[in-house]
């Protein structure tokens, strides 16, 4: 098993430090030079309920957690009940000895021992690392070191607790698993962290956001690292304030970005259209969760696709793209920020909770990243909306001796309001031409990923790409995975070659929005659509089976 995927699942109540436990395990695996995929599943609450983390690791690339655990750590009865069936064939369940569980599982005094400590709930998460250490053959002192390194507070309690649990676990677990080291240590990053870093790489100066799961951690990350990264993070009164401030900032020359989820982004639509009309460069991150409305705030979905593609009233060019990996999230965010500035129009980075919040060992090609130089204004009289053949007018910002007028009304080249019919046609044509320039430019970019070139064609996008790739790996299935990175303009010039093929679409939507898009814009009529829409990402085991059945 040393070369295989190893999966840890740990479950307990919110407030038991489950997510942290997953992070500790992920860091441990990463330090072993292995690849890691960590997914947190938690409901919308602060304490209680049922959380779990699934951390899968392999010596080679891995792009999904698995739902069958090798080591299953259940901190309470509910976790036992929820996950007992999620044990792999060779797996072992460890559980609080107060909970009832099947034979063959290992009861440990997790809650009983925790009672001695100041926060008997929060500390139980530490038991996960202790059980893991025992199962993979770490020594007690290595475990103590791991705890010291991983927890920033309370180690005077964490360490003794971990030692106690470790000792209790050792007889049953010792030597159960042996994990080989991988070839090199890689940083662990979430999709949202990669997005934030990509934005900085692409020129971000100022970020505005109002908290909304699953986009909030971009705000948290940038606020925490603002000085380190040389950027500013602002949390205003609401999403409408957010986007209008960002537009104001962009008109003053700062590269700005906003982020939200569906509901918050819905509130930004009026201003999104303003950016279209006034030709304000603006990058918006839309991280989806299942809707409509409040929906399932902490779960994942691709049900906002049509919404994202058709933002804002009126006609204006926009770019929408969705990353298929954490690495791509970094690259693409920088690229989109650049496109927004080159073409002075709003761009949307569409992603999902599954990418935003999952943490993976990622090797960002930090240096290989787009950097746009927008058209600067020539000296002399300035016209904000100069009717250039490309539709793209030069940029200039105050303070300036020239007058720079941006306008939400239809306007003349100087940015002065006019309702003249001829001018209106000209300006609508200018914006349309700008959209054409943008589409032409996309043809020079890498807009579609293709993985493999044999077997049936599977089309997917966004974080579902991760699930598909792991399912193929897991199932040993050969296929050509086609993932459009750009969704608007949709690179039909790349995609149409698959039009005649036997295409399977995989997406996290109940109505098959992506399949419809492919049909409508690229003439691809999929033979089948594999959908999941309960907020949970596809499991590679399940998806592999579905893909095999589809063959």
């Amino acid at each position: 098993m040393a070369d295989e995927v190893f999966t840890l699942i740990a479950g307990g109540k919110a407030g038991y430090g489950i997510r942290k436990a997953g992070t500790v395990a992920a860091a441990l695996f990463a330090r072993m030079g292995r690849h890691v995929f960590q997914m947190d599943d938690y409901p919308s609450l602060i304490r209680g309920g049922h959380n779990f983390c699934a951390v899968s690791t392999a010596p080679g690339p891995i792009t999904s957690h698995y739902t069958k655990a090798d080591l299953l750590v259940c901190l309470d009865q509910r976790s036992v009940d929820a996950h007992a069936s999620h044990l792999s064939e060779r797996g072992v369940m460890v559980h609080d000895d107060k909970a009832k569980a099947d034979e063959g599982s290992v009861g440990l005094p997790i809650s009983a021992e925790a009672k001695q400590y100041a926060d008997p709930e929060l500390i139980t998460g530490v038991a996960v690392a202790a059980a893991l250490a025992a199962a993979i053959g770490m020594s007690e002192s290595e475990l103590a070191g791991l705890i010291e390194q991983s927890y920033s507070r309370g180690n005077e309690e964490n360490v003794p607790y971990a030692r106690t649990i470790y000792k209790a676990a050792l007889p049953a677990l010792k030597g159960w698993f042996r994990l080989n080291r991988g070839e090199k240590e890689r940083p662990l990053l979430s999709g949202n962290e990669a997005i934030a870093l990509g934005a900085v790489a692409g020129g971000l100066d100022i970020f505005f956001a109002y908290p909304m799961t699953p986009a909030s951690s971009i705000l948290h990350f940038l606020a925490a690292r603002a000085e380190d990264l040389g950027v500013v993070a602002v949390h205003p009164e609401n999403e409408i304030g957010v986007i209008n401030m960002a537009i104001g900032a962009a008109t003053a020359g700062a590269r700005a970005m906003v982020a939200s989820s569906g509901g918050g982004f819905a509130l930004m639509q009026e201003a999104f259209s303003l950016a279209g009309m006034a030709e304000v460069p603006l990058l918006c991150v839309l991280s989806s969760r299942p809707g409509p409305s409040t929906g399932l705030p902490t779960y994942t979905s691709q049900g906002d696709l049509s919404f994202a593609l058709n933002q804002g009233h009126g006609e204006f060019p926009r770019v929408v793209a969705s990353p298929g990996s954490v690495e791509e999230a970094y690259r693409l965010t920088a690229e989109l920020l650049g496109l927004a500035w080159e073409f002075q129009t709003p761009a949307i980075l569409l992603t999902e909770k599954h990418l935003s919040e999952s943490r993976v060992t990622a090797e960002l090609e930090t240096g290989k990243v787009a950097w746009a130089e927008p058209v600067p204004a020539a000296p002399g009289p300035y016209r904000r909306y100069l009717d250039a053949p490309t539709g793209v007018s030069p940029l200039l910002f105050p303070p300036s001796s020239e007058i720079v007028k941006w306008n939400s009304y239809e306007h003349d080249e100087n940015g002065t309001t006019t309702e003249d019919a001829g001018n209106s046609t000209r300006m609508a044509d200018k914006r349309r031409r700008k959209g054409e320039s943008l589409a032409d430019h996309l043809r020079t970019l890498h807009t579609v990923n293709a993985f493999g070139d044999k077997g049936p064609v599977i089309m997917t996008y966004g974080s579902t790409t991760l699930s598909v790739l792991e399912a193929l790996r897991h199932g040993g299935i050969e296929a050509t995975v086609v993932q459009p990175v750009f969704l608007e303009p949709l690179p039909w010039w790349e995609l149409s070659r698959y039009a005649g093929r036997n295409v399977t679409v995989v997406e996290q939507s109940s109505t098959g929005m992506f399949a419809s898009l492919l049909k409508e814009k690229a003439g691809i009529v999929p033979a089948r659509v594999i959908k999941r829409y309960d907020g949970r990402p596809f499991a590679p085991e399940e998806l592999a089976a579905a893909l095999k059945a589809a063959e």
Partner: protein
Amino acid sequence: MSELSTKAENTWCPGCGNFGILNAFKRAVAGLESEGVDRGRLYISAGIGCHAKIFDYLALSGLYSIHGREIATVQGAKLANPNLYVVAFGGDGDVFGEGVSHLLFAAKRNADMTMIVHDNGVYGLTTGQYTPTSRRGFKGPSTPAGSVEDPLDPLTLMLVAGATFVARGYSGKVEQLADLMAKAIKHRGFAFIDVLQPCVTFNDTYKKYNAGTEPAAHDPADFAAAMAAAARRDRLPLGVVYETDKTAFDRELLGEHNPVRDSLPQAGRLERIARVISRS
């Protein structure tokens, strides 16, 4: 001063109070220029409405924004480049209705901006509906039997929200208004001017304001006196109602950092990113 004008055709109704506001603002800018403030550092924005047309009539940079959002627009511009003087022109519908959340928070956080409200008690451009400041009984096309709501009071609202400069002007008193505007622009923090603006077409208040206003006579450093002055309904005090010193939001948040000026080239960014990642 005259070069502050533009070629845009002025389409305010003859006699509209907005002319007074426009003239006062031009004077204020001229005054500031004579004090050495470069007009190129002014950034203006406006909502949507009759008031907002001032954007087209001033030869100054900025964004003609959307209904109620000019308040957020200018705050964004200021945070991007704190060297700008930012001024938002708003209507009473705009600022107290659609955009009131931004107004309250601009005051609360002491955003360094000037908010000039063209307070005509009516949605002018959409043909005369009642607004948050319309008197009870106001008859407009959405309230043909008369509005059944009492008006909001802009001044007390702003005082309570934490504004550090609160004033009332009158478009009929251009010189005083110009003076208030210049003071507001120079005030380092959130400056609010509620300008009484007759709308000759839908809410002609010239007589009322000519007779019913008087210069403010209290100490504007005294919050309680300011609240009392703001609450007066017999005659409306004109002038600075309240003024106090408090560190402005951009300064609190950014310190000496200027996001536009200090924007890093890509190389510097990549270095920092690598450093941050190495700690992940």
